[in-house]
């Protein structure tokens, strides 16, 4: 069943359209940064964005910070919202159920396919943003990669390229886990409605509410339980512990 779901995922043109759109955002940002060379002021704009001006190798991390808060969760919510409701609308769901496919296996396969999509999309974004970064900003002549001051709040820390790759892998794993949360919410809503749009909308409503509450001090007591609270915590992979 998992193989069937993967086939459905990768035989749909929209999978690639969404991925291309995800790649386009960091690319557009990179073009503007490279042509104007105006870094965002410290503390504003996406993480890593001022650092990439001096070192393109960090651009994949910047790309993650760009797609993570909005674009990627929206894509996941749309795909997950459609995954059961869309099948119900085309009538294929009842033919799967009388095939028979157990409902649990169907849901697990759908979730696995969504995780695969996230991995695929992030992978493509990492590769394209690395190429973009190298082409537009160039790499530092030295062997290591200096971590940017606005992220580490400590300049001069240098990591090796291998270290950078390791940290990026950690980032990917972290983002996948965050996205499983989005996928699970949207998938649940997708099972209770026939409208793919409705399910995606419901999942986005949950996320937007969570984003608002995260910034609200009055809601501080429930803050740790909000699904979006720790979404950008992967940036800590690029911080060095200093004591």
């Amino acid at each position, binding site marked *: 069943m998992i193989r*069937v779901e993967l086939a*459905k995922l990768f035989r749909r*043109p929209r999978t690639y359209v969404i991925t291309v759109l995800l790649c386009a955002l960091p690319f557009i940002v990179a073009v503007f940064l490279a042509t104007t060379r105006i870094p965002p002021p410290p503390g504003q704009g996406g993480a890593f964005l001022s650092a990439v001006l001096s070192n393109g190798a960090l651009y994949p991390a910047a790309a993650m910070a760009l797609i993570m808060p909005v674009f990627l969760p929206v894509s996941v919510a749309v795909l997950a919202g459609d995954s059961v409701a869309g099948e119900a609308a085309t*009538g294929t769901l*009842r033919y*799967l159920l009388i*095939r*028979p*496919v157990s409902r649990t296996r169907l849901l697990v396969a759908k979730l696995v396919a969504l995780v695969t999509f996230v991995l695929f999309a992030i992978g493509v974004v990492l590769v394209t943003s690395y190429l973009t970064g190298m082409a537009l900003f160039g790499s530092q002549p030295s062997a290591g990669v200096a971590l940017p001051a606005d992220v580490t709040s400590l300049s001069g820390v240098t990591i090796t390229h291998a270290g950078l790759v390791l940290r990026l892998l950690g980032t990917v794993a972290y983002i996948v886990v965050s996205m499983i949360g989005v996928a699970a919410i949207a998938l649940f809503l997708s099972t209770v409605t026939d409208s793919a749009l409705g399910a995606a909308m419901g999942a986005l409503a949950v996320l937007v509410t969570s984003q608002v509450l995260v910034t609200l001090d009055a809601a501080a007591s429930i803050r740790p339980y909000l699904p979006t609270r720790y979404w950008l915590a992967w940036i800590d992979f690029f911080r060095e512990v200093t004591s």
Partner: protein
Amino acid sequence: MIVTRDLTKRYGRRIVAVDGVDLDVREGDRYGLLGPNGSGKTTLVRMLLGLVFATRGEIEVLGLSVPRRVREVLPQVGAMVEGPGAYPHLSGRANLTLLDAAGPGGGRRGRRDRVEEALQRVGLAGVDRRPVRAYSLGMRQRLGLAAALMRRPRLLVLDEPTNGLDPRGIREVRDLLTELNAGGTTVFLSSHLLGEIEAFCTRVGVMDAGRLVLQDELATLRAPTGRTLVATPDADRAVALLDGRVEGRDGHRLTVRHADPGELNAELVGAGLQVTEIGPERRSLEQIVLDATTTSSDRVEAA
């Protein structure tokens, strides 16, 4: 093959979609479930396949209890409910391949053969790589049938199988079902098209407002009524001759209370009358259904 006892489905407190149905479909039957739109046919079929739970009552399909053992039942059942379903961006062949791979017994070996055989049976063998989106309604219907046939089922449950087909397509589907039935497959089909049921089925059930109001052999239902229909240009003389036995007259057509058309014919001809048509009166299936049902349930009258 299918037995239900007091099968009932309620939606909410007020709507009773299926009400105390005792269905009895026997092995080898060609069973036709008739009923106006909204009479509960589709809900009944959905319950038989374990897609919705019954509110009350028991279901047995292929001798096993549904929904408890529905996973043992379904692999031997081919079904089409509420129209065919397919992924619109994939070809018909790809759709069947995915469906085959999704469930049990769908080993990779022989998959291509199973798919090709099913396509062949429904007359789609030459279908190309066009996506289902570009299929006509009739082609989609055939594809849905192919999906139902792929498992070589012992029981076919088809809800409105000829929807969207042209007269030739309807005939082809009927011939296909006849062939499958001759090979031992029990066919259960629901339809609101009387002609389709009359031409194919041996047993009929009639549903009305959620109840099964009639269930019998078609031959029994359509047995001669004991009257004979006569058409004669000498209608006036015939009425005079048959004095009292004529029950109805429509121009030169007479309805005569007489069980044996041959005997009546001899009598009329013997008296020097011309007879252009003569035969026993049978109730049409339409008449049977109209007598058994009350009103079209998609008709909404003012209270």
